[in-house]
C-alpha cells in the first residue's frame, strides 16, 4: 500500500483508468491550463491540482480545456456518454451546479428512465465542494443533498484517499451518471491506498469507529470532525458508532439502521443548511424505520439557515464542529 493524499489518489486513479480505458475523456476549465497562451499547455492541471500529467499522456483529444460554460461542459459530458464515451467533467466549484443543473438533473439523470431503459449515460462529474477556505457564499457549498434528491444520479463523497481511489474507479466502471464530490479542505488528507485494481462498491458505508452507545452518521469532511469528537468522548467512556456514508445515493440504510437498533440514539452531521438536508433525510428514515429502537430524538448538526459567510470567525461558526458533535452526542445520551 502506498501512502498518498486525496489529491494524488484522484490524479493517479484518473491516470490508471484512462490508461486502461481509451473511452475515458476528461473535460473542464483549466484541467490542462495554458491553452492559447505563450506559456503553453499544462500550465496548471486543474486549479485543485488533480489533473496534471493527463494532457501530456493522453493528448488534446482526451483531456479537454473548455471555455467558462458549465452548461456546455456538463451537456457535452452527457452527450459524449450517450455516444459511448466515459467523460469525466470537472465543476471547479460544486456551487456551479447553479449554472449547469439542467444537464445534471433533467438530462443525464433522466435519459435512461425517459428513454425506456435502453440507454446508459456513464458520465462522472467531479464537484469540488465544501467550506473551510473562506471562499464565502458562492464557493463553499455542499450541494450533495440537492443531487441526492434527484433520481437517476449516484452521489459519492470520499473522505479518505483509499475511498477516493475505490469510489472513483467504481464510478468509471459503472454505467450510471455519478456525482463525485471532492471536499476542497480534504485534498491534503493522507492515507494508505491499496495498490492495483481497487473498487469500492457504492451503497456500502464505512464503520469508522464502533462504540455502541450512539450512532453518528456523516460524510465528507465531517467524518474527520466526527473522529475528533469520538476520540474525546471515548476518553469519557462514551462509545460512538461513527458511520461514513461514502455514498448518499445509493444509501446504506442497513448500516445506519443496524447501528441505531443497537444504540437507540442518532446524531447526523451535515455540512449544509438544515432544511430538506441530508441530515433531515437520514433522521426521517431512521424515525420511520427504526422508530421503536430510538431512545432519544434524532439530533441534526447542520449549519444555520443562512448562506455561508466569508470571515474566518463566521465561517467557523457556520460549519459544524467537533465540539458541536460532541455536545450533541452528550445531549442525546442524556435524554430520557
Amino acid at each position, binding site marked *: 500500500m502506498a501512502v498518498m493524499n486525496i489529491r494524488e489518489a484522484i490524479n493517479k486513479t484518473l491516470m490508471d483508468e484512462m490508461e486502461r480505458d481509451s473511452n475515458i475523456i476528461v473535460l473542464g476549465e483549466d484541467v490542462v491550463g495554458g491553452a492559447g497562451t505563450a506559456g503553453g499547455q499544462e500550465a496548471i492541471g486543474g486549479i485543485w491540482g488533480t489533473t496534471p500529467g493527463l494532457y501530456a499522456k493522453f493528448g488534446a483529444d482526451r483531456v479537454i480545456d473548455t471555455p467558462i460554460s458549465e452548461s456546455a461542459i456538463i451537456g457535452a459530458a452527457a452527450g459524449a456518454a450517450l455516444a459511448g464515451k466515459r*467523460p469525466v467533467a470537472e465543476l471547479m466549484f460544486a456551487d456551479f451546479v447553479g449554472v449547469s443543473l439542467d444537464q445534471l438533473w433533467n438530462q443525464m439523470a433522466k435519459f435512461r428512465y425517459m428513454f*425506456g*431503459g*435502453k440507454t446508459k449515460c456513464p458520465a462522472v462529474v467531479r464537484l469540488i465542494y465544501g467550506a473551510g477556505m473562506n471562499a464565502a457564499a458562492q464557493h463553499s457549498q455542499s450541494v450533495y443533498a440537492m443531487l441526492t434528491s434527484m433520481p437517476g444520479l449516484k452521489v459519492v463523497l470520499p473522505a479518505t484517499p483509499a475511498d477516493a481511489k475505490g469510489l472513483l474507479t467504481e464510478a468509471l466502471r459503472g454505467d450510471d451518471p455519478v456525482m463525485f464530490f471532492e471536499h476542497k479542505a480534504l485534498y491534503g488528507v493522507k492515507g494508505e491506498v491499496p495498490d492495483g485494481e481497487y473498487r469500492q462498491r457504492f451503497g456500502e458505508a464505512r464503520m469508522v469507529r464502533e462504540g455502541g452507545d450512539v450512532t453518528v452518521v456523516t460524510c465528507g469532511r465531517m467524518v474527520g470532525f466526527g473522529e475528533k469528537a469520538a476520540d474525546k468522548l471515548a476518553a469519557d467512556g462514551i462509545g460512538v458508532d461513527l458511520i461514513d456514508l461514502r455514498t448518499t445515493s445509493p444509501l446504506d440504510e442497513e448500516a445506519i439502521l443496524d447501528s441505531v437498533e443497537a444504540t437507540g440514539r442518532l446524531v447526523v452531521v451535515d455540512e449544509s443548511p438544515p432544511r430538506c438536508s441530508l441530515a433531515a433525510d437520514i433522521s426521517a428514515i431512521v424515525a420511520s424505520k427504526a422508530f421503536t429502537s430510538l431512545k432519544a430524538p434524532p439530533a441534526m448538526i447542520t449549519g444555520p439557515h443562512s448562506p455561508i459567510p466569508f470571515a474566518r470567525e463566521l465561517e467557523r461558526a457556520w460549519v459544524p464542529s467537533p465540539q458541536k458533535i460532541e455536545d450533541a452526542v452528550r445531549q442525546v445520551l442524556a435524554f430520557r
Partner: protein
Amino acid sequence: MQLSRDDLVGAYRRMAIIRKFEERLHDEIKTGEIAGFTHLYCGQEAAAVGVCDHLDTEDLIVSTHRGHGHCIAKGCDVKGMMKEIYGRRDGLCKGRGGSMHIADLSVGMLGANGIVGAGAPQAVGAAIAAKLDGKGKVAIAFSGDGACNQGTTFEAMNLAVVVKAPAIFVFENNHYSEHTGVDYAVGTNKDIASRAEAFGMKAWRANGCDYFDTYETMRELLDYVRAGNGPAAIELDTERFYGHFEGDPQRYRGKGELDRLWEERDCLKAFRAKVSEAKLLDLKLLDEVDAEVAQLIEEAVSEARAAPAPDPAHVAEDVYVDY
C-alpha cells in the same frame, strides 16, 4: 450529384410519413385519447429529411420538443413511436417518455428533449466522441429559432468552435417560438446564421421548405465538416403548419397566413411539382407511396390503440443500470 430514383422516392416517402403521422395525431388528439403536450412537425418535413438523408446510424442527432420529424427521418420505428405517444408498454420508450422524449440510440437518435436548448451541448459532446473515434462521423443538434436564444445553445456553439468538434447546428427557423415572433425574440438585426458565424463557424442558409435546397446545402456543409474543419451551422427557413402545441388558439397568425403557408410553402407539394416538372418521377408513383404511407399510419394508430398499457408496478424501474 443527382439523386437516384430510389433516393427520390425514399425522400418523398419519409416526408410523407412525417406529414401523415402528424396529421393523424392532430385528429386523434381531439379524441382525448392521447395525453400530454404534443408539438407537431407538419410543414418542416423537408428540413428533417433533407438533413438526415445524408446520415447513417453512426451519425448522431439530438432533437427538440418538436421531435417526431427528426425521429422518423433518422429511422425510428414509426409504430414504436406511435405506441409511445399513446403511452403504451411497448412504445419506443415503454410509455415513460411520450411525445417529447422519444429516443432510439440504435439508429443514432439521442433523444427529443423537453428543455429548449438542452440538446445543443449534448451534440457537441457527441461530436467530441465522434472526433475521438476518427471515423468522420458528425453530431447534429436541431434547434428552433426560439432555442437559439437559450444560453446553452450559445455556449455549445462556442465550445464546438473551441474544440473543433464535428458538430452541426441546424436552426429550423419556423418564425415562431410558441406565440412569439422570431423578429422580436432574436435580437440580431441579421439572420440566425449570421449570429452563428459570429461564434466563429461557417454557416449556410437554405429553404427548409424545399427538400432539394436543404439536401444540397447540407451536402456542402457536411463535406466541410467531415473534412475536419470543425463545426458548422445552417439556418433553414421553414414553416410550422399547426399550432405550437395541439390546442394552441394561434391568435398570433396574420389574416390568411395559414392558408397562404399551405398554398405556397408546402414542401410535399413543392417536391411533387419539381420531380414531375423535371420528369424524374411519375406522380402516380408518389400517389402509391401516399397510399402505402396512409396504410402504415392507419396500422400504427390501430396497433397503438390496441396495445397494452404499462404496468404501474414497473413505475420505478430503469432509473439506474444498477443500484
